[in-house]
């Protein structure tokens, strides 16, 4: 994906961003609060409209993209709806939706993938519990399991480590290690990397809606994310269209 602009309520949040994520990369989107990290990944997927530029998913604009099963989106938090309970298993199983056809019942493959996803995040024994009763870290695990259940090529995670206890963070790191070993692509938004740090192959640091660092993961994220930090990187020239491609128009 490469470069676009987004305004929320007429306030520019992203000011022209060029970003191409290639298959197999593990990209961390870093930056201070309000730097536009979440907006970037959501705009990347076409979940919020661009006010300038364009975004491509596997070479296609989101409106004409049909292979949504290739993408597993993990939102910032689990929305528990209007109080109607849902079990952990029901939420995780809903991750299969982009692989299911409307008129066919949930099949054995769906059930098996759901069970695998539940086991991967260590919630298999609690599958029948309502998600409303879980702690923040456990709800985050449910969200990740939902994405895992869909068996996508690319994971897009919005702050998977925010407000998550150390044990859940380590579990997330282990899960991601497994995915990276299988060659999956991961884009994640993070405030702090914590145990995820060794996995990251590329860091994109945002500041005031612009990319201020794009390259190997900085050792001290804090210093790099600071305003005024001067960073010059040799950037690869024209690259072949990647997994997610975002190009500026005009």
């Amino acid at each position: 994906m490469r470069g676009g602009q987004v305004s929320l309520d007429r306030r520019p949040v992203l000011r022209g961003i060029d970003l191409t994520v290639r298959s197999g990369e593990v990209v961390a989107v870093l930056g201070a609060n309000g730097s536009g990290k979440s907006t970037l990944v959501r705009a990347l997927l076409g979940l919020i409209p661009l006010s300038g530029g364009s975004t491509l998913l596997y070479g296609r604009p989101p409106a004409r993209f049909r292979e949504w099963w290739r993408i597993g989106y993990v939102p910032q938090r689990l929305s528990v709806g209007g109080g109607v309970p849902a079990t952990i298993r029901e939420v995780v199983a809903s991750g299969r939706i982009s692989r299911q056809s409307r008129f066919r019942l949930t099949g054995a493959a769906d059930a098996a993938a759901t069970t695998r996803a539940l086991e991967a995040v260590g919630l298999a024994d609690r599958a029948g519990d309502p998600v409303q009763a879980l702690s923040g870290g456990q709800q985050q695990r449910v969200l990740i399991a939902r994405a895992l259940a869909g068996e996508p090529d690319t994971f897009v995670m919005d702050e998977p480590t925010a407000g998550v206890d150390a044990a859940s963070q380590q579990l997330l790191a282990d899960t991601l290690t497994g995915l990276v070993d299988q060659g999956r692509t991961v884009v994640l938004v993070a405030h702090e990397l914590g145990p995820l740090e060794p996995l990251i192959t590329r860091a994109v640091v945002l500041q005031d809606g612009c990319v201020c660092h794009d390259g190997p993961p900085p050792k001290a994220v804090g210093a790099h994310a600071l305003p005024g930090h001067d960073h010059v990187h040799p950037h690869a020239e024209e690259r072949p269209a990647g997994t997610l491609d975002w190009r500026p128009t005009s």
Partner: protein
Amino acid sequence: MIDLLQYDFMQRALVAAFLVGLAAPAIGTFIVQRRLALLGDGIGHIALTGVALGFLTGTAPVLTAVLVAVLGAVAIELVRARGRTSGDVALALLFYGGIAGGVLLISLAPGGSNATLMSYLFGSISSVTAQDVLVIALLAVAVLLVVTVFGRELFVLCQDEEVARASGLPVRFLSLLIAVTAALTVVVAMRVVGLLLVSALMVIPVATGQQLTRGFRSTILLAMLFGTVATVGGLTSSFYVEAPPGALIVLVALGGFALALGLGRFVRRNRPQESRQ
């Protein structure tokens, strides 16, 4: 119960009540999950204009009510999807417009008065004809079909719209589907409990169910059970105590909710591993 079934009008009323008790909570569960519990009320208000329009133009009020309710539901959905902050105010404006329009139009209709609207506002289940039962049955089947076929997608949509979009679901189509299905349900239930109480059947059984359940599927099934118990129970008791059935149905449903609230507390207290989390 036996003497009750001797009357044709009562047989028809019971069938209608049963079907409405089944269909309203089925779609209501998704509406409550979507935090649109008052959607049914809004559509009900708007449907009143449709009823009055029917009297004014000499067409069947049910038909015009369906038409106007569907249009109103689509309008509500568009307003909801477009605006973020002023959405509830815009909805309120539609509600008032619906009632005012209904009262105005009925006064223009030949021989029409606010009294004509009363049976639609509060229901008139004992005057249900065989043809009405057929229409109610068809609409109820349509609602249940929508819930069965699109249930999985609607679950994702109502849980998190962004995730639904990122899963490639047709978000706009599904949102309109919910709105239109709700509108059909409102018109179906209009004859049973009346427009002012329609939403009660879409919301109270769901609120009752969720006191006792842990999952979505069990909530929707239990809500449908409670819905039918309330409609059939309320109607039956109205036959014996000679009170308006619409009011009794809603009060039976509310009684069930109060019971479930107490029972749910008790169940949760005896489920220690959950309360600890």
